[in-house]
């Protein structure tokens, strides 16, 4: 373990650590643009220059590996002048169109200018070199070559992470530009990450452009619901509207990346939401009140079970539900209603596409959790559908907005065979168009819980903001229904449900929200 001194503070770091990372250990921030922890070292932005004893020239902290006894200073006049000098050179051709730039507020140039710059421009305005702005380059990305500082992060990402190499450097000297080859746009499923890693406003998200100033956004930890990978995400919202998802670093799952499909899953949480409970009477929707609807649903389920026997009642679970919700739902179905007709469906979205990086074929976040909790999917679901189609079910409780791959017509035909269908769902869809009673549910951003990803990693998603409209947390809906069916549940919040779950379910034994922490925890197999 080499020991080095940075600004007079001594620190031990593992062999092979760069000065830049060693400095982080002692809380010294070294400015940088081209360095990205998940990409190779380029060393070309020259912002991270530091003084190293016995070296005549300033060294780049990102590429210089610490040796024992090294003495580094980042706070000398020489270093400050160098950093300011490099920053000035980066800014001479920059258009300073911050008022119309999406990056404003989270821009490396703005941040470092406030810290190290604050100089008046010495560059003649008429000397500015203009490059092409607003270039459509494919994927989720818009390129503004004029704002680019040519740090090469995007080029390295496309070379080292996706291996697709669409962006390259063209031309030379101060006419250098990042660009695609003519007619060869970005063509990979991870283009959104380019906007994340671009330290300036050169690569911005087509989806997020001009939607919201970033300083209005609040952030909470979430999990992407787009597939069973369970990529850790930061969800950005203003009030009850989600604006974007960005990958949250988790080396065990998604490193620093997420796919383009997952990145847009937030839209469903804003659009076509079920916002009020309603019932369908003679084909027409009639707004209902939670206070009367919940007892009514509980009563109808119970009545059907009492009348025709538990086998005439069925529950369809959703792999979009959390472990906690599935745990209570299983209890409701098997213990309270006493039925064996319990299976989970899978969402229609997606075509089963998968790759060898992040994208999984299963487009649900918690199929593994459902299976671990003893709720079957697949064939059991198909069998249940057959049973419903044969008129064998009198009352049905459905979680989720669609039934497998059934179309709207097929769903309507199927559900028409059931006298009473209650749905707990987030969005308008085939089920809400056919159900007898619709109980609007909070989206993943509006509640907390855990998902178990494809590899058996249990990860928490957090409450971001209260449910929109009159939607309710599905956990509350389940508690309310369960207690009306005589459960006597005294849970309060998802953490208490998880405690009970961890006590009774072997794969989750010994787990708690504390042990799951920020980055999740693998189940015991």
């Amino acid at each position, binding site marked *: 373990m080499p020991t080095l001194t940075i600004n007079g503070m001594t620190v031990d770091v593992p062999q092979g650590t760069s000065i830049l990372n060693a400095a982080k250990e002692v809380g010294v921030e070294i400015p940088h643009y081209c360095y990205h922890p998940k990409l190779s070292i380029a060393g070309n932005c020259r912002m991270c*220059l530091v003084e190293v004893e016995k070296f005549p020239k*300033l060294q780049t902290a990102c590429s210089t590996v610490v040796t024992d006894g090294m003495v580094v200073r980042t706070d000398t006049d020489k270093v400050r*002048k160098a950093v300011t000098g490099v920053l000035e050179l980066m800014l001479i051709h920059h258009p300073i169109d911050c008022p119309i730039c999406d990056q404003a507020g989270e821009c490396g140039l703005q941040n470092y200018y406030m810290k190290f710059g604050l100089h008046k421009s010495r560059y003649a305005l008429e000397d500015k070199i203009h490059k092409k702005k607003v270039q459509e380059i494919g994927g989720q990305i818009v390129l503004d070559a004029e704002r680019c500082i040519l740090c090469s992060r995007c080029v390295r990402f496309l070379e080292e992470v996706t291996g697709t190499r669409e962006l390259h450097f063209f031309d030379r000297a101060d006419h250098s530009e990042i660009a695609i080859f003519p007619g060869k746009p970005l063509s990979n499923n991870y283009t959104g990450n380019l906007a994340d890693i671009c330290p300036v406003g050169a690569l911005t998200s087509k989806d997020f452009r001009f939607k919201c100033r970033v300083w209005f956004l609040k952030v909470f930890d979430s999990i992407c619901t787009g597939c069973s990978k369970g990529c850790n995400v930061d969800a950005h919202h203003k009030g009850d509207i989600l604006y974007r998802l960005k990958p949250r670093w988790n080396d065990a799952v998604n490193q620093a990346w997420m796919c383009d499909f997952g990145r847009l899953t937030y839209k469903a949480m804003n659009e076509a939401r079920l916002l009020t409970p309603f019932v369908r009477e003679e084909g027409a929707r009639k707004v209902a009140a939670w206070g009367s609807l919940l007892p009514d649903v509980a009563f109808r389920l119970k009545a059907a079970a009492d009348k025709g026997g538990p086998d005439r009642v069925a529950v369809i679970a959703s792999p979009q539900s959390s472990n906690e919700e599935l745990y209570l739902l299983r209890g409701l179905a098997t213990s309270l209603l006493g039925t064996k007709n319990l299976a989970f469906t899978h969402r229609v979205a997606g075509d089963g596409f998968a790759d060898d990086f992040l994208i999984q074929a299963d487009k649900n976040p918690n199929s593994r959790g459902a299976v671990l909790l003893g709720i079957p999917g697949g064939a059991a679901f198909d069998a249940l559908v057959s049973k419903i189609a044969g008129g064998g079910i009198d009352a049905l409780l459905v979680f989720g907005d669609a039934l497998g791959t059934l179309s709207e017509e097929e769903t309507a035909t199927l559900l028409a065979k059931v006298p009473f269908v209650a749905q707990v769902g987030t969005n308008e869809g085939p089920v809400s168009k056919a159900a007898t009673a619709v109980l609007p549910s909070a989206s993943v951003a509006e509640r907390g819980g855990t998902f178990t990803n494809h590899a058996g990693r249990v990860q928490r998603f957090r409450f971001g903001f209260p449910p929109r409209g009159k939607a309710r947390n599905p956990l509350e809906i389940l508690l309310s229904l369960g207690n009306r069916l005589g459960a006597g549940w005294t849970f309060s919040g998802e953490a208490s449900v998880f405690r009970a779950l961890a006590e009774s379910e072997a794969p989750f034994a010994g787990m708690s929200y504390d042990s799951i922490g920020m980055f999740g925890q693998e189940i015991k197999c």
Partner: protein
Amino acid sequence: MEKVLTTHFANERYRRLDTYRRYGGYEALKKAFAMTPEEIIDEVKKANLRGRGGAGFPAGVKWGFLPKDLSRPRVLVINADEGEPGTFKDRLIMSRGPHLLLEGIAISCFALRAHACWIYIRGEFAREAGIVDEAIAEAYAAGFLGKNILESGFDLDVTVHRGAGAYICGEETSLINSLEGKRGWPRLKPPFPASVGAFGLPTIVNNVETIADIPWIVTHGGETFAGLGVEKNGGTRLIGVSGAVNRPGVYELSAGVNLKEIIYHHAGGIRDGKALKAVIPGGSSTPVLRPDEIDVSYDIESMGKIGTMAGSGGVIVIPEGTCMVRSLSVLMNFYAHESCGQCTPCREGTGWLKKIVGRIEAGKGRQGDVELILDLCDNMMGRTICPLADAAVMPAQSFIWKFREEFDRHIGEQKCPYGNRF
């Protein structure tokens, strides 16, 4: 004086293998095969042979940087991307004595235990590339290259690779990238080419002239070669003299020749009987000298002591009546055009220097522009991956330090006092 390279260059046929052999060509290779690689390297170290590409690094020491284990194949790359303005000596070797280079390559590869060599020739040198290609074909046919050279059991393949016209590809790691088919960007070091170079293999990159000296060193011994020069600077150098002299051209002179003697004796003095105004001593990147500074030995150490460099041996002579601002402007245009664009200080700084110097020359200079240039130079010098930024800064700083009054006059009078002429 004894000459190492150019003795037979006047003979147009010397580029042909038969003529080259008539003058003892490839005898050094035979001698080398009777030696061990270590003995050859030892002779090169004794020869005090300094790299002729510009940096002047001791060749024997550089060869010693190759990793000791032989598990990975080694590569020799010849830097024939002679692009430094004012330098035109390697071109002469390739066009007049290509077999000197090839024999040097064969001996060097044997000493380095390398079985592959690429000659990276500047794109503009189409004619020279053709000559070298012909020479390679002759050498293969005669068994001086290829499999089992001269029954020694040693195999060597030599390939010409032509550049595409970028000055930066003369920088060794940039050259390696270009050779590999990548964009010609200098690489971050470490790793150095000796451990990870061309195609990931241990690589030595040497200048044409450096390698062309090797046969003579093997034939006559390292100490004899060292004796042709001065302490720490063995042998002779090819010095290209250009500008306002009576006899511009390439001169092979002792590595310790006096700079004033180069200009006034060998190159015949200043044209049209004019007085000397300035000398750029070692290629356009090296700091300029005033007439009172040129009575100095041209060896690397002596030039370093007076704050400049012998560089790549390109002496540019500037006569009285030349506008120094205009001259600097020409140089700044060159570097702004040739910066590869990788590092911020060079990419943006060279262009800015070009614009400031350009406006001063055009009579639009502003108060404080000279200070701005010096401050900008300070922000560029030593701040980049490769020395291209330094190469632009050194002339800019030295022109101002030594000819400040001309810059001030341009700004004060808002015009070029020389009427914009050279």
